[in-house]
């Protein structure tokens, strides 16, 4: 479980018929576009965040090189070991994210096609109940079933973070003005052409924000991998807690928070750049 959530804006269970999220984010986007002040504010936030991350990292490095550590601590916090933990954490995040994209986006597209639309409430309902499950419970249950290790961690991460991508894909596609779809069909575009050239490009902003949410969720949830021998930065925190070594604990916590912020920032940059012009 992590603090990063897929729905910072609204508590509405995503009801496919009422789409508060799409409407809210759409109106927010419109405000961004309409007011240059806000747009500049957006850029300022984009600049501020990496500065924050850099400062945090600098502070950590300074702390690390000025503190005398015990042998155990020094072993765990050696540059190579730390780097391995970070890489492993990233690996968990990225592998799970790729799988999530491969599953959730096609599924989201399929569930918005007329033929399958009637299954939408069912799938969303199930996903919501799933989302209410605590991540740690999911990890433990899956570990009981599949055993400890990298594979199980990935499965747990995928299950846990697929919902934001699935939901935003559907919300984004449903948010596309039906008249544009009709205009496309009316001028002789095939269903696939309308999907790829009209619907998906217009849904990109909402979809990307779902992907960013999922990524942040993944970074946070991957800290729990330590409990089922999945590795990553959670190991540092966990070891710190069990051995009462605050330096380990704080190192793991700070690094994972910085990683989450950095990835969130990357996501925002991508969203900014990939937003179709003209919207």
């Amino acid at each position, binding site marked *: 479980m992590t603090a990063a959530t897929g729905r910072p804006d609204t508590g509405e269970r995503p009801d496919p018929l009422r789409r508060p999220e799409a409407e809210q984010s759409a109106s927010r986007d419109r405000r961004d576009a309409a007011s240059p002040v806000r747009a500049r504010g957006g850029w300022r936030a984009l600049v501020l965040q990496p500065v924050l991350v850099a400062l945090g990292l600098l502070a950590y490095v300074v702390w690390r090189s000025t503190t005398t550590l015990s042998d155990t601590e020094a072993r765990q916090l050696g540059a190579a070991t730390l780097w391995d933990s970070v890489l492993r954490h990233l690996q968990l995040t990225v592998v799970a994210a790729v799988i999530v994209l491969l599953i959730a986006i096609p599924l989201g597209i399929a569930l918005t096609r007329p033929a399958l639309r009637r299954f939408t409430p069912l799938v969303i309902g199930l996903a919501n109940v799933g989302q209410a499950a605590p991540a740690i419970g999911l990890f433990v249950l899956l570990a009981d079933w599949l055993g400890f290790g990298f594979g199980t961690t990935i499965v747990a991460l995928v299950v846990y973070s697929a919902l934001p991508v699935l939901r935003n894909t559907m919300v984004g596609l449903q948010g596309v003005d039906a*008249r*544009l779809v*009709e*205009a*496309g*069909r*009316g*001028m*002789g*575009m*095939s269903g696939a*052409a309308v999907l790829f*050239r*009209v619907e998906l*490009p*217009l849904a990109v902003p909402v979809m990307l924000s779902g992907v960013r949410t999922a990524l942040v969720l993944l970074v946070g949830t991957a800290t729990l991998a330590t409990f089922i021998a999945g590795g990553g930065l959670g190991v540092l925190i966990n070891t710190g807690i069990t051995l009462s070594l605050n330096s380990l604990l704080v190192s793991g916590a700070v690094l994972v928070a910085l990683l989450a912020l950095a990835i969130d920032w990357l996501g925002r940059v991508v969203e900014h750049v990939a937003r*179709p*012009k*003209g*919207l």
Partner: protein
Amino acid sequence: MSDTLSSADAHSTDPAPQSSEGRRVSGVSIRLDGVTKRYPGQDRPAVDAVSLEIPAGETVMFVGPSGCGKTTLLKMLNRLIEPSSGTIHLGDEDVTKQDPDQLRRRIGYVIQAGGLFPHMTVGTNVGMVPRMLGWDKERVTARIDELLDLVGLDPEVYRDRYPKELSGGQQQRVGVARALAADPPVLLMDEPFGAVDPITRQRLQDELLRIQEELGKTIVFVTHDFDEAVKLGDRIVVFDVGARVVQYDTPEAILAEPAEEYVADFIGAGATLKQLTLTRVNSLELKPVTSASVGDDAAEALARARAAGDEYIVVLDRRGRPISWPTTAEVSRMQQIPATVDEKLPVVGLGSTLNDALDTMLAASQGGAVVIGRRDSLAGVVSIETIMDAIQRTRSEVAG
């Protein structure tokens, strides 16, 4: 335009290339036979056994109360809605036996607010169908510019803009240009001008009349506005619930002899006054006027105007479109003819009705209006007295 015509010929299966009035015709006829649409779960069909023949190159207006099935019928023509039964022929081809996507590329479709794709530039929007048809790049580019020009938008200015950077009226023009892109013989329009203000709507109507004059498509046009139907239509279909055809005739005939009480109600009060809508500016005698191009020598233009006895000089931009009409007194204080665009310049088209012309003058608080013809070029001026005289004459004719 040669490109337009040659590709039109390729589609045209109509044997008569010229209509009776000698107008150019690039459209094909449309024939509906017992066309019915039943939506699932509804006991009455939305469209009930409609048979209709629409001649090539004519503009046919669909009017009728809300929910009577106009849109449903229109969308069956390009198979956005599949008919439950009945046949539809475009020219000699049976619509229901064709691949719908291929079919739709040959039928222009315009909806309210243009239905422009917001993430594509104006040029990309317009070039969509030609690209799908596999035209090469240069041909598509040339076509985009030609069409923007046709609908009165400067390609240099508007080609690379996004739809949100256009006004509602401009978006609608681009919508029309996009529908015309592959030079389809048939144009379907579903309340295209429903979302724009009255003045803009009138301009768009004039524009459409002008374009149709040039191209001679078969146009099926749904509207709620009976005046619009009278103004634009060669014929009008009045529908009742279930798309029952109550009357199908020319505007003149429908106004003179409504087939049923229902039609008379629908036309509303003042049917005789609506006859005014039938009289167009092109039936009036236009006054020639002195014109000058931007950058011309002011003294020389002034001399010409004085010689002709004109009180105004109409200023044309480099594409020959009127942009202002300063008085001779104003011009006498100038060195050169300025490029200032007078936003309030009263402009009417040759196809405008007398009502429109009067409205335009009153809206601009002017005693006359500039009349434009093909490609927005100057055709002359018309004064408020001429219009009033014509209106008086029409009224007495109708009354007597």
